[in-house]
């Protein structure tokens, strides 16, 4: 079946019937191309979702306080709830088995000056643990430490772009900046993968901020990290008991949904991953639709080819072509064209995906790619399906009666 002569015969047929070869090859190549691109887009969508979370730790809760929405234990509705430093201590004391770190965050915008340069920046008054939750990377100097919190030092850790804005190419470490009318010493410069916004923050000790604001002990927001090993169910349980604990402590009705709000990043991530998974499934479904369409295309072309070659097949049979010879001729031609065209379509698709990179980021497609094995398997499926689809018309061709094919009309 795989003799050199048969291949010669097939190459001759292919090279002498260029339009037919092109049309069938084009359908196959297009099918694979669309599959590869769609599949790559599916991965690109997933990348986008992952990227939203990647630069921050995901074992994180953000705890906010708001106003009560119902009366409870003699307290009226619409009471303002605020966290204080002792809330941090209580959480530490009550949840040691869950808790990895905890830090408050007080966000204020401030005018910051250095020599001639000035600009408005968001400052975040935090504890040392904040570095873990934002995955802040120090470029030079150091981050805030426990001692800074205790001593209420006037130290600032600034983003890479803050240094660039205010200091140009000069080194900011050890210099004093004017932050909202007070001098702060720059002790560190950081970078962050989260993008430009993340690199325009200034971190100071939260106790320093509290001192500036009339020695208050209020904190806006509590950020805490739970131990990775408690897993997703552990995180959900922790969220629940933390909610209950804070409500009891602040005399809030257990039914009140407004007063305390916990943003559970792990839960959000999971939901988003599920969403991305569903999206990818849909894309995959569409992509397989394309493959099916490609297969149908191949069988149509095969039916057409056999019809077009009816007379030729009749002649060949009269000259001694066995049914087997006819089937191998038709089938091998189809498989050969499908293989070459499928390969071309796959390569174009992969190259196209690679060249896209981040150009479609506005459409939530980041770095679309296809695993090369997936592409090869898909191409293989199409080739095999094409062969099966081609077998039926080839078999029909083999059954063509020479007298019917050769009748002169």
């Amino acid at each position, binding site marked *: 079946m795989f003799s050199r*002569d048969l291949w*010669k*015969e097939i190459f*001759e*047929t292919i090279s*002498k*019937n260029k339009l037919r070869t092109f049309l069938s090859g084009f359908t196959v190549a297009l099918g694979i191309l669309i599959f590869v691109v769609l599949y790559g887009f599916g991965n690109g969508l997933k990348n986008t979702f992952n990227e939203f979370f990647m630069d921050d730790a995901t074992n994180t809760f953000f705890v906010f306080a708001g106003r009560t929405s119902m009366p409870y234990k003699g307290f009226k509705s619409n009471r303002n709830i605020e966290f204080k430093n002792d809330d941090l201590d209580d959480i530490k004391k009550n949840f040691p088995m869950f808790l990895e770190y905890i830090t408050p965050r007080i966000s204020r915008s401030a005018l910051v000056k250095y020599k001639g340069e000035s600009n408005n920046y968001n400052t975040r008054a935090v504890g040392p643990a904040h570095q873990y939750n934002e995955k802040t990377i120090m470029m030079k100097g150091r981050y805030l430490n426990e001692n800074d919190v205790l001593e209420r030092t006037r130290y600032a850790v600034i983003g890479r772009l803050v240094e660039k804005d205010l200091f140009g190419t000069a080194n900011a470490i050890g210099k004093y900046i004017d932050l909202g009318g007070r001098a702060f010493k720059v002790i560190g410069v950081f970078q962050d993968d989260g993008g430009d916004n993340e690199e325009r923050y200034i971190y100071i000790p939260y106790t320093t901020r509290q001192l500036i604001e009339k020695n208050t002990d209020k904190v806006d927001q509590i950020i805490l990290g739970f131990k990775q090993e408690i897993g997703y169910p552990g995180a959900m349980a922790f969220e629940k008991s933390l909610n209950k604990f804070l409500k009891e402590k602040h005399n809030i009705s257990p039914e009140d949904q407004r007063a305390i709000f916990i943003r559970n990043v792990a839960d959000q991530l999971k939901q988003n991953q599920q969403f991305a998974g569903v999206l990818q499934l849909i894309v995959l479904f569409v992509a397989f639709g394309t493959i099916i369409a490609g297969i149908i295309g191949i069988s149509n072309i095969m039916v057409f080819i056999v019809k077009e070659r009816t*007379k*030729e097949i*009749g*002649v*060949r*049979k*009269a*000259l*001694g*072509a*066995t*049914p*087997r*010879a006819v089937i191998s001729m038709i089938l091998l031609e189809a498989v050969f064209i499908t293989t070459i065209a499928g390969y071309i379509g796959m390569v174009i698709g992969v190259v196209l995906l690679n060249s896209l990179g981040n150009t479609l980021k506005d459409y939530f497609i980041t770095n679309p790619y296809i695993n090369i094995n997936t592409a090869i398997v898909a191409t293989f499926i199409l080739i095999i399906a094409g062969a099966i689809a081609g077998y039926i018309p080839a078999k029909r061709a*083999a*059954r063509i*009666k*020479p*007298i019917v094919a*050769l009748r*002169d009309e």
Partner: protein
Amino acid sequence: MIEINDLHKSYKMGSNVLHVLKGINFSVKEGELVAIMGSSGSGKSTLLNILGMLDTMDTGTYMLDGVPIKNLNETKAAQYRNKFLGFIFQSFNLINYKTALENVALPLYYQRMPRKERQDKAMKYLERVGLRDWAYHHPNELSGGQKQRVAIARAMAAEPKVLLADEPTGALDSKTSYEVMDLIQKINQEGNTILVVTHEPDIANMCKRIVHLKDGVIEKDELVNQVMAAEYV
């Protein structure tokens, strides 16, 4: 060479049955040149197709070179056709995208002859029909007479026992027809057995024997004085 006994053939067309051949008895010896004559629709092609194993008979027996031709499956029929028979058709039936040489070599391909040998042999037969210089031309570059000569070379290339020609001159003008008949006569003189279906008396008279078909039976089977086509060329 050919032995046929009580051959019947009918075609079913819906509820009608068209009885085309109603008991043909007929034999051909090696080296004969036989014309099968009859009006259009008399069953000449049907008979030739059965002899060529392109069609099956309903009842009767058929022996070809001592081999009974009966209940052949497709593969066997193809192999027998390749080995025993060469076909020449009214409309040539060359493959358009192949050169004259490739067309002639095709039956040898199905004999699994090596490529080089195949081409040498095909070239030899093309030379015999006077078309050596046209070997690498495609059929659409050839005249009708040339095409039929290529077809004759193709039929002979596999060196079959019998050549079957169905109205080989039907699509040609008379001058070209005589040239083709001249070629057929020469091939016959070399000892080949040839059956020619025709409805033209002058073509039939260039054979050595004429079988007249009418109403599904052989009406007359006569030896004739062969008219040499060369006289008209």
